[in-house]
């Protein structure tokens, strides 16, 4: 959008199909679907997602990937115009300097090549455009922005907020790219709670509803869907000449040339393209391409009930699909330093009525009394989960091309090497303890599943979240990374990479806002370059 509005002619190539939110996204109740949201048995092995949203996810048979022995990593992907912002959790948190400069503080990894001061104008610009509903609280580790009014808290969230305050923990409303009032000609949220299946009115940020329409309106943007980019082509002057893509259904190979090439097809797909485009990888003089793969650590959590809410009336508790957030409050400065682990995590909590009472089959008993108990607890459900825990950047976590496996179009796929550090496990263990502390402070009652022996804790399975970043990290010095602070490759002056590739560390915030701010900053630099004809 930034480039086409500035007058540049832009060709966007999308490997997936187009969607029209107003027509393709519907409010569908589980009972309206033959398989109640689960899809026909066996088919979900093929498609990511569920019966409601598999069309905006991905066909795993067409798009395989492999993992190295010892790697437990589930890569959740989407191939459709708009990609994963069509079904994201909308969490829109700014990173802070304690994250950008974490390496200087604790010695692990590398500082970012940007500071909060560099990023702030772009956070402001992005948030102002997309609309973020949030509360301004003044927490230095959770910087505020030009927010819309926050979404009100439901009863369970109010109780959790009170519990967090009584523990002297910071607490705020979840910050969401979801409108609480008319904003930039977009309607407010109508609180259906259906966000992950695609928003039919564009009240939650997604590129199809928010950035593409103004970009297309300029007449400078052409979008070609079902176009699977296979490689970046180079010319003799060490410039990106353009790309080759394969038409998804005809398998026809097409070359297109451009003055600038931007890879923005999601973090690992970007890296895959760079690995496919030159022996040893494109723009890889540092040797860092593919290396330092990270994904925020997730797992653990507590679920159960808040007795204060039992037997209460039905309310629209899950209509905003939100909650409260407890920003990280450990290892943010000397005073909060922990001796047993470095970095930190953000917690979320919510509760109340949900579409399906997941606890019901675990509740002992049956019959009319059981039904009454299910209904009584249905409105009192509660859960605490981890929003994001920082995973340490390690060179031995990397992606490479699998020499044996190719996708539907004959393009080699990624092989993922991914394991966790002991620090990752310590963070999750600490989160688990804190989550239970919060739950107890809220007066919560924990219910375990009979099959798991009635345990009160969720399993700590580490193996992939949905926040994969790294593999082409930014660096001040070209020897240390692939990208500069504007997400342009150090080695090739007209090749930019937008996504999570640039992240030298995960931080503990959801990464999407920072990806968007980095892209806006990169576009500014590209436009400056173009004006000066420096490329």
């Amino acid at each position, binding site marked *: 959008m930034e480039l086409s509005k500035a007058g540049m002619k832009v060709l966007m190539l999308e490997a997936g199909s187009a969607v029209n939110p107003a027509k393709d996204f519907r*409010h569908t*109740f589980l009972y309206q679907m033959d398989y109640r949201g689960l899809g026909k*048995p066996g088919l979900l092995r093929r498609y990511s997602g569920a019966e409601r949203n598999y069309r905006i996810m991905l066909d795993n048979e067409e798009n395989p990937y492999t993992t190295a022995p010892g790697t437990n990593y589930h890569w959740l992907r989407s191939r459709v115009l708009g990609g994963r912002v069509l079904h994201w959790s909308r969490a829109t948190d700014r990173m802070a300097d304690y994250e950008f400069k974490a390496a200087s503080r604790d010695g692990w990894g590398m500082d970012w090549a940007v500071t909060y001061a560099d990023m702030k104008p772009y956070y402001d610009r992005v948030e102002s455009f997309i609309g973020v509903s949030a509360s301004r609280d003044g927490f230095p580790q959770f910087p505020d922005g030009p927010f819309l009014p926050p979404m009100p808290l439901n009863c369970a969230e109010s109780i959790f907020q009170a519990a967090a305050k009584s523990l002297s923990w910071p607490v705020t409303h979840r910050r969401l790219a979801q409108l609480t009032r008319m904003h930039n000609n977009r309607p407010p949220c109508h609180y259906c709670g*259906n966000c992950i299946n695609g928003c039919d009115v*564009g009240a939650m940020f997604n590129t199809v509803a928010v950035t593409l329409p103004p970009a297309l309106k300029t007449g400078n943007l052409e979008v070609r869907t079902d176009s699977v980019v296979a490689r970046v082509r180079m010319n003799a002057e060490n410039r990106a000449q353009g790309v080759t893509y394969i038409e998804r259904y005809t398998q026809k190979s097409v070359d297109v040339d451009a003055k600038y090439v931007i890879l923005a097809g999601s973090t690992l797909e970007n890296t895959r393209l760079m690995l496919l485009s030159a022996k040893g990888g494109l723009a890889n003089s540092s040797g860092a391409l593919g290396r330092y793969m990270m994904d925020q650590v997730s797992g653990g959590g507590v679920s159960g009930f808040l007795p204060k809410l039992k037997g209460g009336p039905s309310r629209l508790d899950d209509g905003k699909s939100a909650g409260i957030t407890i920003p990280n409050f450990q290892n943010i400065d000397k005073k909060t330093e922990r001796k047993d682990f470095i970095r930190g995590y953000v917690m979320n909590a919510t509760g109340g009525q949900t*579409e399906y009472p997941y606890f019901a089959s675990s509740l002992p008993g049956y019959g009319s009394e059981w039904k009454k108990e299910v209904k009584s607890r249905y409105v009192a459900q509660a859960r605490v989960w981890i929003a994001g825990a920082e995973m340490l950047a390690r060179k031995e976590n990397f992606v490479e091309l699998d020499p044996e496996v190719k996708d539907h179009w004959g393009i080699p796929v990624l092989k993922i090497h991914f394991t966790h550090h002991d620090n990752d496990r310590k963070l999750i263990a600490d989160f688990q303890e804190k989550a239970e502390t919060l739950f107890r402070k809220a007066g919560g009652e924990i219910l375990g599943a009979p099959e798991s022996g009635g345990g009160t804790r969720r399993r700590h399975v580490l193996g992939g979240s949905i926040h994969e970043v790294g593999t082409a990290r930014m660096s001040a010095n070209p020897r240390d990374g692939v990208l500069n602070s504007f997400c342009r490759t150090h080695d090739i002056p007209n090749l930019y990479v937008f996504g999570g590739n640039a992240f030298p560390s995960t931080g503990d915030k959801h990464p999407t806002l920072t990806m968007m701010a980095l892209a806006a900053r990169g576009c500014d630099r590209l436009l400056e370059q173009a004006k000066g004809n420096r490329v």
Partner: protein
Amino acid sequence: MTTRRTLLDLAVRAAALPGAAEFFNVWLHAAQAHHSSAPPEPPLLRSYKPRFFSSEDFAALQAFTGILIPTDETPGAREAHCAHYIDFVLDSSTGYAPEMQNQWRAAMAALKQTGFHAAGKAGQEKLVAEMSRPERENGATHPAYAAYRLIKQQNTFAFYTSRAGMIETLDYRGNSYNETFPACTHPEHQVVD
């Protein structure tokens, strides 16, 4: 939930905002279509004839699911066609999930072993009470406990994802168009004990 009055108010506001009409037209159209109530359940299960289970097993499953989720002041498994749904899913899994089908065959065989199929209503209720004991009593066992758990899990899912369970029993409010989100205003929720 959004009322006709608020929809009209929104339409007036939309007309006053340049560029907003397109989005609001979608919003209003969808809201008008949805604002009244949750839509009816599709007819699939009402006319469904069991294909996976034998008639004897199906009758036993229907009786079992009805004991687990009886009809009382709200609908039960029978009104929600839970046994039909379980049969439908199992029949659909032919060629895809043989392990799931085998698990159910084993469960129904275990159930038959207990005498459930041949028992009268009172006998069946007594058998379910015995089978479910391990759920409540530490150390208790029953050879058909796994069958009880399997049927309970699938019956629970079938019931609470049906209109009878989700809307008519639990009164689920989501998946609707609303002008505002109902904030908690309870003083007792703003403090912890």
